[in-house]
């Protein structure tokens, strides 16, 4: 199978859906000729024209609001929010308008829009361009939240998001745009609410989202060398969350570490840990451990910034602590 970058995968997904459905449009800052700062959308304006790939002024709430109205009246807009950090600017339009319209109208109005944005620290971009704010929107009923962990997931989830009849926020890891992964040339969709077991294991479950899936996979390799068998699960969408796959895995392994790049306090790790602690309680042989981003604004200095996000080494260290009750693994 061919391998393409995550950036190409997103581009392909959007292009395919725009060809398939003339109501799909893109709105955002520098999405047309510039193709966004990360060049993810390069080439789309050439194929679909400026009527459908629309450069906006630097007015995030404005163009997000316009997308909500367009979605309510027959289009399927994709809003391009250049940095996840700008979510704070669009909260009213996203959370008060888009998320609630279907419910408030008793099911009459729908808002089929996608807001694509990004997350991820360690790009040396400091506190206002490095945040991972997916928990913020996953808290809001009426919004779906997808978090692709590779080019393959990025393509399949984006296509599903565009076809979904609800507002979907999709977070891409901005450090992964150039990472390649095998992606089939033929069309495929990835359903929401279905976690993917990247790697099966017996001793401990590592649940990781987006960028942290790579971290979990690296940790699993290190653990295997120490005779600890880790299962790596990627929820792929955190709203809806595939609880049963996570619970079944932990029932098997009895231990879990939840790894996510959002802040740890009140975050995605807390939500997933509580699901496990509740539904797999009598199968737990160790406390569920959470590893989120440190609860500090993201610092600029590289030596400081690197401390704030989970790393494979730190996952391994925690996994071994949780394994201590199992005699055969204790050194």
């Amino acid at each position, binding site marked *: 199978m061919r391998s393409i970058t995550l950036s190409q995968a997103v581009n392909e997904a959007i292009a395919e859906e725009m060809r398939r459905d003339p*109501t799909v*449009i893109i709105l955002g800052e520098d999405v047309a000729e510039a193709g966004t700062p990360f060049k993810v959308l390069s080439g789309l304006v050439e194929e679909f024209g400026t*009527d*459908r790939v*629309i450069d*906006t*002024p630097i*007015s995030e*709430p*404005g*163009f*997000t*609001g*316009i*997308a*909500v*109205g*367009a*979605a*309510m*009246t*027959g*289009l399927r*807009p994709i809003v391009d929010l250049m940095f996840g950090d700008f979510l704070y600017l669009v909260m*009213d*339009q996203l959370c*008060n*308008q888009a998320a609630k*319209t*279907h*419910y*408030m*109208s*008793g*099911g*009459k*109005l*729908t808002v*089929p829009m996608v807001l694509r944005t990004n997350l991820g620290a360690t790009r040396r971009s400091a506190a206002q361009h490095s945040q991972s704010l997916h928990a913020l929107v996953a808290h809001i*009923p*009426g919004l*779906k939240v997808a978090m692709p962990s590779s080019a393959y997931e990025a393509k399949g989830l984006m296509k599903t998001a565009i076809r979904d*009849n*609800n507002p979907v926020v999709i977070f891409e890891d901005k450090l992964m745009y150039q990472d390649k992964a095998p992606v089939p040339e033929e069309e495929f969709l990835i359903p929401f609410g279905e976690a993917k077991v990247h790697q099966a294991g017996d001793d401990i479950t590592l649940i990781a989202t987006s960028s942290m899936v790579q971290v979990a996979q690296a940790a699993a390799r290190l653990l295997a060398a120490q005779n600890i068998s880790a299962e790596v699960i990627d929820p792929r969408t955190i709203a809806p969350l595939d609880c049963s796959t996570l619970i079944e895995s932990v029932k098997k392994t009895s231990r879990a570490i939840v790894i996510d790049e959002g802040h740890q306090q009140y975050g995605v790790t807390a939500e997933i840990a509580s699901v496990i602690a509740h539904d797999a309680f009598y199968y737990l042989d160790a406390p569920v451990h959470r590893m989120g981003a440190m609860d500090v604004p993201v610092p600029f200095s590289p030596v400081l910034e690197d401390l704030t996000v989970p790393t494979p080494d730190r996952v391994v260290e925690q996994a071994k602590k949780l394994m201590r009750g199992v005699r055969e693994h204790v050194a």
Partner: protein
Amino acid sequence: MASNQREQWLRMYEQMVKIRQFEFQANQLYLDAKMPGLTHMYSGQEAVAVGICDALEKTDSITSTHRGHGHCVAKGAEFKAMFCELLGKAEGYCRGKGGSMHIADQDNGNLGANAIVGGSAGIATGAALTAKILGTDSVTVCFFGDGAMGQGLLYEVMNMAALWHLPVIYACENNHYGEYTKTEEMAAGELKARGEAFGIEAFEVDGQNVLAVNNLTQTLVERSRKGEGPFLMVLDTYRYHGHHVGDINRTYYRSKEEEAHWRDERDPIDNFEAHMIAKKGATKKELKEIRARVEQEAKAAVEYALQADYPPLDEVDSHVFAA
């Protein structure tokens, strides 16, 4: 007088009476503690909603505000489903999930009232973008109050609407008070100039004169369909009640004399009635009959809504997501 003009006058008169009557009944429901929550009365501003909506087709859209009953009626909504919504009943426009501040009537092009001041400016502009991209020829009117002139979102979308020549008409109902504060204390400069800064043609009109509002809107709708939009209308009007139904003691922000002046001298319904009779467009008896009939309809709708069923409890988590 041409029969189609007489027909239109009578239609607009009846719509204004319907709004006044709807609000009267809604206020009674509130005072009698039969209505959950609270509501914002449109009484006094009827000529704005009716003058504008009568110039629109059913396929044209509007977005509305927290003070939205008037827009809803003017765009063609039915009393029964509206009262049911106000009382949280299953037969309401939103199955009781929206209430007074969120009535949406998509079939008649009402994209919904909005409880965030200025919150619907993006939605209206987006609807206009849809019309442009799909070439549907429809126009969207964005109703908002003078208070929304303080919201940044409005200017972001006005800017884009102007850049992209969208068929949207921003209708600012200047009722002179944002909540409990005079507009002059909140808005620097002229309201009209806010649109003109973006190169948007802006108009001031007497919002108590239904014919003036209607004539201007007809022109602007026609021009919008030709791609000459967007436009801004600033409509001079007045709300008879407080900001909301419980806003009774309001002399600290506006005088009883001022209220009496608007009610006695500038009432849009009374003045239009006098105009119609003077122009032989209708007889006093005819108009009295309309008022009586509308009152009966409203009372019947209230009775119906009071007896109607609440939504089944299992609907609490339906409609969170669309299929």
